[in-house]
């Protein structure tokens, strides 16, 4: 840029750019001057800039011998430009843009100090002080790509961890056995004979098949063998009644039989079982709704006397006669009875159970109309003293009277208590059961899920009473609880507590869950669905799975 010496006012033709800048009053010299002034103020404050500048100029001098002279002479101008870059962070966006060397200029790389021509793609240096030559820049480009990859993969990993948590799966390398079983399950239609792989794995395979819904008439034979004593099929929906009969033909020595989702089961099947399964002492049928009441009567008449455990769920054809048959035949041996969602039973029928003196485990769940305070108190009076397990889920007609006059006086040996969905209980009632309940040594499994009228007093009394023995505690939807209860839980030395569910209990937050995982050494699984105050910041001990946190993204 030439200037007229002597300050002459004569101006020749100028480029459009020069005209433009002059009109706006933008003067490069003025700007530079301003920079130097502010820089001097800065360098007096921080010695770093001076060191960097002198350091870089010193190293570059030693580096390139050919440009030594050029370097020495232009060191001052470089000092200035370097200072400009360092300053850019402080001055702001506009100045940063203006100080950035334009494409086409020759600059020195901030990393390797070699000369290079600035292009539009030159990357800025790590610390912002200058640009990088092509080779340094491309090196960083690789690293940035890697960073992005690891970010994405860590996000994916978090997702898979969260997904695995929801399924309560172990997050580990899959076992060889499990993989083989999966393959077998997929190819089950083709495989002829499975050979000797042990009972335990047979059950595993049966479970996987049930999950795949591949347990069918043509595959069931693979699981039947004469020596089998325990047989559990969780999904028999594709098994016709002939196949179900096969079970008795092929496995006459079976002692414990569980058949769930067995909707196709008809009377002949049960009749065949009653004649062929001479060793049967435990039977669980879930969903066998075609079986008529008369058939049940015949069944109990035939082998009731050897039955130790009977569990029935989801049928409407089990009525008074059937229950009478049980009572008539099984009173000497029946120890565990479970009736769930058997809608046809009434209160009067339940009183028949008084004649089963050997009962140690009783479940009468999801049969609202049939369960009342009085009948249950009568039952407990009869055999409460030997009862170990009691499950009365969804018996909403029960009130505190049952708790105080039934459970408290008679259930000294009770270890497993499930009273989910019983909204008839109040806080005071629950407290009155557990407060100083000396006859009872402590519950192992306690389920008060969805007992919405229970609060701090009741649950604190439960904790005071059973802290030393509790293994499973379910307080889902007991929303009136406050954090005082959970602090009590943490400080009560619950050394065996391994499974805790406090979903939808709003008071539980990060603090509470941290203290709980810290103090309760055996904790393995915490279900925290709907606990909005628990975030991903909560520090959970390793080995504790927390399922259902909102922050676990899927």
């Amino acid at each position: 840029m030439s200037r007229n010496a002597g300050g002459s006012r004569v101006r020749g033709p100028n480029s459009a750019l020069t005209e433009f800048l002059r009109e706006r009053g933008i003067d490069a010299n003025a700007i530079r001057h301003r920079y130097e002034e502010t820089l001097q103020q800065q360098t007096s404050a921080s010695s770093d800039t001076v060191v960097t500048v002198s350091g870089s100029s010193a190293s570059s001098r030693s580096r390139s011998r050919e440009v030594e002279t050029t370097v020495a002479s232009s060191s001052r101008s470089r000092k200035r430009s370097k200072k400009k870059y360092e300053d850019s962070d402080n001055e702001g966006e506009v100045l940063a843009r203006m100080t950035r060397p334009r494409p086409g200029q020759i600059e020195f790389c901030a990393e390797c100090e070699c000369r290079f021509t600035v292009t539009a793609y030159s990357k800025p240096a790590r610390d912002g002080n200058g640009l990088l030559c092509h080779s340094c820049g491309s090196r960083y480009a690789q690293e940035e790509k890697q960073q992005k990859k690891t970010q994405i993969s860590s996000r994916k990993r978090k997702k898979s961890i969260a997904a695995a948590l929801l399924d309560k799966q172990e997050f580990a390398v899959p076992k060889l056995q499990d993989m083989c079983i999966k393959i077998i399950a997929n190819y089950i239609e083709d495989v002829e004979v499975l050979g000797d792989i042990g009972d335990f794995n047979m059950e595993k395979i049966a479970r996987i098949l049930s999950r795949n819904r591949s347990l069918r008439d043509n595959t069931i034979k693979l699981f039947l063998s004469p020596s089998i004593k325990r047989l559990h099929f969780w999904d028999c929906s594709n098994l016709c009644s002939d196949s179900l009969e096969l079970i008795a033909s092929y496995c006459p020595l079976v002692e414990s039989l569980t058949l769930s989702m067995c909707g196709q089961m008809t009377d002949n099947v049960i009749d065949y079982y009653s004649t062929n399964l001479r060793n049967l002492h435990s039977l669980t049928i879930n969903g066998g709704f075609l079986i008529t009441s008369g058939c049940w009567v015949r069944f109990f008449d035939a082998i009731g006397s050897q039955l130790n455990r009977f569990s029935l769920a989801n049928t409407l054809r089990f009525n008074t006669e059937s229950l009478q048959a049980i009572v008539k035949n099984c009173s000497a041996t029946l120890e565990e009875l479970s009736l769930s969602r058997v809608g046809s039973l009434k209160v009067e029928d339940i009183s028949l159970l008084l004649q089963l003196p050997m009962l140690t485990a009783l479940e009468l769940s999801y049969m609202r109309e049939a369960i009342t305070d009085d009948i249950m108190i009568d039952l407990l009076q009869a055999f409460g003293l030997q009862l170990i397990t009691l499950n009365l889920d969804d018996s909403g007609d029960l009130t505190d009277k049952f708790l105080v006059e039934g459970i408290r006086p008679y259930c000294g040996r009770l270890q497993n208590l499930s009273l989910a969905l019983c909204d008839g209980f109040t806080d005071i009632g629950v407290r009155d059961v557990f407060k100083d309940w000396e006859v009872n040594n402590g519950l192992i499994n306690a389920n008060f899920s969805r007992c919405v009228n229970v609060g701090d007093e009741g649950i604190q009394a439960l904790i005071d009473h059973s802290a030393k023995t509790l293994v499973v505690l379910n307080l889902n939807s007991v929303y009136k609880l406050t954090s005082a209860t959970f602090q009590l839980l943490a400080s009560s030395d619950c050394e065996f507590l391994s499974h805790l569910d406090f979903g939808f209990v709003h008071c539980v937050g990060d603090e509470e869950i941290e203290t709980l995982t810290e103090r309760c050494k055996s904790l393995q699984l915490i279900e925290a669905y709907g606990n909005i105050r628990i975030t991903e910041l909560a520090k959970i001990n390793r080995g504790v799975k927390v399922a259902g946190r909102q922050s676990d993204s899927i």
Partner: protein
Amino acid sequence: MADMSGDREYVRLVSSDGFEYSILRSAAAVSGTLRGMLSQSSNFVEAKQNRVVLPNISGVLLEKVCEYLYYNLKHQNNPGNIPEFDVPPEMALELLVASDFLDGKHC
């Protein structure tokens, strides 16, 4: 390689048809059975010789087993996004029996 009287880094697995596979001791330790057999604190011949004979597992099968042992060892610390372990279906049954024998919490 520091050799503490028999605590070699590699151990040998011998199949029923005479094939010998040399694998890392840490890989063999993935299997509970093998770990016990090769444990230096026992008086087993296997531990002294660092060699385990498996007369119920064929060569082809044993090779697959070794493959799995290394797969498990390699991905122990990062079970998140690991490649699938390929098992040919014809081998699945026998492999199941073998892995049942070799047991372990991990096998």
